[in-house]
């Protein structure tokens, strides 16, 4: 059985409490009302019966008495039936009434007044028996139907009230639960923000005294997380930075070697060429690593002419800038964005298409919902479905690159694209281009000015 939620449990507990309380109150009230009503009714019935009995007794002296006449000479009222028993013979007004129970008759014949409650077809009734003189007994059968109806109605009302109180309890519990859990919602919100990369999210420890400890430890956790991330970032930046100076020497020295390789003997020239190639690759790697660490820094937003940037990136690589188009009526290819990141993304995507995708077929810029979208289509073999996530990880090259034994590039280009896109409130993915080839799609979150 699935465990109930906190709110459901609070609600159930309050509802059960309300039920127990309201049911006991209802039950006690019912008992009290019932006994007082019954007592009062009994007293009235007794008094009336004695009065009627003395009336009847005063009129049955003679031997020629018409008992039925005596009984009909007084009006006992609705719901009361007088019965006179003389020497074992019952006289009564109704033809087929309630019989006097045996044990009651015996008691009354023994000279003792008594009563008994019986259940008749018309509901409960009370029979009062009063001995008059030897051999003569007066009985009065009083219907208790009205009382019974009243009690039943009271019972119904009390049950309804108890039910209502229980439901109200459940509702109160649900509401209280929501109120009580509301501070936790802010915790969840903050945690979500942090997961999305907003490390400035903190909880206000003053906001909810009962959650002070939670807020304090939560904030402490985020502080440490932030410090750790900052330390890692700085380390990566420092390492890359420290690599720049020796690399500058290597790059310059390699250029000298390259220029003079004709004057070197064949073997030295070979070695020099290897050094030059490796220095170039190393240089690219460090530049790429720095680009990745830059993705962690804040966005530097401005109005960026992305169309011009994309065309420029094409021109640099001897691609006809006419492949770049702005799709849809919205906007003119000018987005509010971080120019460097957008430039880097465009450059890396175009480079990737050229290097691994058989050339750029189209570059499309458009706006879709909350995103600005860059799409670069290539003419290559496409990307296998199992590689589609892998290729955006650092140091992973597509299977096509491996097949070609391509050693150019460190395999960071697409990883940089993914990281920069994420830092720009979006992401990168690769799809199939209709008609063959791959379609790289980068979404950038639209920024408000």
């Amino acid at each position, binding site marked *: 059985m699935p465990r109930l939620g906190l709110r459901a449990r609070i609600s159930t507990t309050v509802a059960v409490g309300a039920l127990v309380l309201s049911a006991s109150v209802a039950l006690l009230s019912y008992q009290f009302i019932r006994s007082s009503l019954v007592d009062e009714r009994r007293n009235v019935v007794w008094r009336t019966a004695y009065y009627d009995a003395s009336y009847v007794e005063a009129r049955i002296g003679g031997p020629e008495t018409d008992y039925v006449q005596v009984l009909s000479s007084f009006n006992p009222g609705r719901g009361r039936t007088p019965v006179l028993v003389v020497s074992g013979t019952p006289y009564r007004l109704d033809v087929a009434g309630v019989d006097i129970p045996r044990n009651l008759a015996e008691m009354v014949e023994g000279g003792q007044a008594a009563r008994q409650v019986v259940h008749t077809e018309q509901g409960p009734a009370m029979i009062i028996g009063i001995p008059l003189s030897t051999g003569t007994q007066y009985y009065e059968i009083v219907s208790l139907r009205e009382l019974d109806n009243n009690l039943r109605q009271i019972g119904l009302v009390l049950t309804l009230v108890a039910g209502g109180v229980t439901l109200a309890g459940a509702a109160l519990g649900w509401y209280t639960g929501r109120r009580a859990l509301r501070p936790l919602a802010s915790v969840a919100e903050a945690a979500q923000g942090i997961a999305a990369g907003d490390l400035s999210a903190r909880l206000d420890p003053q906001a909810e005294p009962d959650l002070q400890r939670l807020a304090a430890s939560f904030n402490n956790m985020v502080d440490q997380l932030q410090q750790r991330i900052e330390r890692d970032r700085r380390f990566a930046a420092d390492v890359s930075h420290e690599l720049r*100076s020796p690399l500058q020497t290597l*790059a310059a020295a390699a*250029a000298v070697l390259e220029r003079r390789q004709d004057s070197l003997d064949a073997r030295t020239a070979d070695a020099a060429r290897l050094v030059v190639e490796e220095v*170039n690759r190393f240089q690219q790697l460090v530049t790429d690593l720095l680009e990745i660490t830059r993705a962690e820094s804040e966005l530097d937003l401005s109005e960026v002419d992305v169309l011009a940037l994309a065309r420029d990136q094409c021109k*640099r690589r001897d691609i006809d800038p006419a492949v770049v188009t702005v799709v849809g009526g919205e906007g003119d290819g000018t987005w509010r964005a971080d120019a460097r990141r957008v430039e880097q993304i465009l450059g890396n995507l175009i480079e990737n298409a050229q290097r691994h995708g058989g050339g750029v077929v189209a570059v499309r810029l458009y706006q879709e919902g909350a995103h600005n979208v860059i799409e670069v289509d290539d003419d290559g073999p496409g990307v296998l479905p199992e590689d589609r996530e892998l290729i955006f990880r650092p140091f992973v090259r597509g299977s096509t690159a491996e097949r070609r034994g391509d050693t150019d590039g460190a395999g960071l280009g697409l990883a940089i694209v993914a990281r920069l896109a994420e830092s720009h409130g979006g992401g990168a993915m690769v799809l199939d281009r209709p008609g063959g080839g791959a379609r790289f799609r980068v979404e950038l979150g639209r920024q408000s000015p």
Partner: protein
Amino acid sequence: MSGVLVIEDDDRIRRSLMMALEDEGYKVRGTATAEEGLAAHRAEPAEAVLVDLMLPGIDGFECVRQLRRDGDATIVVVSARDDTHDIVAALEAGADDYLVKPVAIKELSARMRAVRRRNRGGQSNPGTIVVGDLEIRADAGEVRLRGEPVALTRTEFLLLCELGAHAGQVLSRQQLLQRVWGYEFGDERLVDVHVGRLRQKIEDDTSSPRRLVTVRGLGYKLQR
């Protein structure tokens, strides 16, 4: 004015840069501190100066500032720092260009060639352009605002000439990079910073420029 001056405190970097630039055909001098560099430049002005930012004693920013005050040699900062903040600060101090280490010698050389072309006055500018109360005398290398001469660096002057020659027309940042700096491609921030400095000299209120205006998404325009 001749040759290239390399001001770089890292011995190996300086030596390798000097070697590579000499191979490219430049006459190169090198110093390890800004003080020595400034003295060398005063003794014999260089055509172009490469300056590192992190120098002992006078730092690179101050060195650029003093070089700019001394004359209009082309100043290129070559630094390991790549924060936008540093780049903008160096350009605002007066640098014409900013390159981040490691710089490929081919690229450095291309920039130096562009500098040389520019300094030899490869551009053909019309004699005098008058735009409102602004007078640009390209042949005399002079700019007057309401009759008063305005002191501009070479880059600022060339930028204003280019904008003035096409007054009323929008020039994109890439176009300006190509025509003023002679770069096939480059960092557009170069243009933005130089436009900002130019505005300080020719605008009455730089926060709402009236002469040199930005056309959103397109580039810059000198109002006719």
